[in-house]
């Protein structure tokens, strides 16, 4: 799994935050536009692009893109 690709897919689920602002360190829950719509979109994106179906409870403890990346990665192994 490629981290840059993941960041790109992740950033695509946001409208107001510029894609270039996203890094593995981004604390996505603190973004102004963060909402339940982004949360659902990210779960959908992970399911479509990585064939990993995460439960919302599993995503809940993640705060940075890195943490979410690691979670998806762990499901792929």
């Amino acid at each position, binding site marked *: 799994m490629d981290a840059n690709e993941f960041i790109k897919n992740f950033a695509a689920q946001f409208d107001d935050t510029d894609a270039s602002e996203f890094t593995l360190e981004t604390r996505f829950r603190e973004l102004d536009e963060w909402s339940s719509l982004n949360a659902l*979109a990210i779960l959908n994106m992970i399911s479509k692009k990585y064939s990993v179906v995460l439960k919302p*409870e599993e995503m809940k403890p993640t705060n940075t893109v890195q943490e979410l990346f690691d979670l998806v990665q762990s499901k792929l192994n």
Partner: protein
Amino acid sequence: MNPFSLVGKTILVTGASSGIGRAIAICCSQMGANLVITGRNETRLLETFLLLEGTEHQQICANLTNSSELEKLIECLPKLDGIVNNAGIAKPLVLQLTEQKDVDEIMQINALVPINLTRLVLQNKKLNKGASLVFISSINGNNCAYIGSSIYAASKSALTGFMKAVALELAPRGIRANCINPGMIETNLLKSGSIGEDELEKDRLKYPLKRYGKPVEVANAAVYLLSDATQWVTGSNLLIDGGYTLQ
């Protein structure tokens, strides 16, 4: 005579292997109906079958989105006094990430199957005079909407439009058509998606009656619409939502 009795009526219930459909089948059998139940999962369909009261029931396993299986089901059917179109799926998905195959999958079982099943029973003369057609729609798409449910909402409001025209066309034969619009009901459907248990708990509290509905509460409404108590009720959407859409 109990006005809600279904004695002497033969009723087809789709999606009877789970949740709301199972409760409807059981309730109808308790009210004296002869059931034809259908679902995909053989084991769970049999479980429902064994829970039915009475002996004159039939179970037919079929994937209704497969047109040859649908046609085979139609062939096997006795003359019907009622149909509950209940089989359906929910798939929380933002439009932005929705693919054509997702649209097809949801529209197929939720809207096209009930439409084609109704068409085929009519064309194959499987409906008795005075029959009652019940469609399990939803508040979603008819009374409100949710994020991530655009296709589901479209499929459920399609049912309403279809039901209304059918109610008009079949009225001369005394055949009635109605929808039931449930709010959230405690079934496996809730677990299919992207809503976590604590979010569900928060959502339950948004209901004026402070909980989600139970499958049997939808089943009671189906009994009502299938029974002779509603011989003058056609073309309606029966709201069962614990007051959710009042706000």
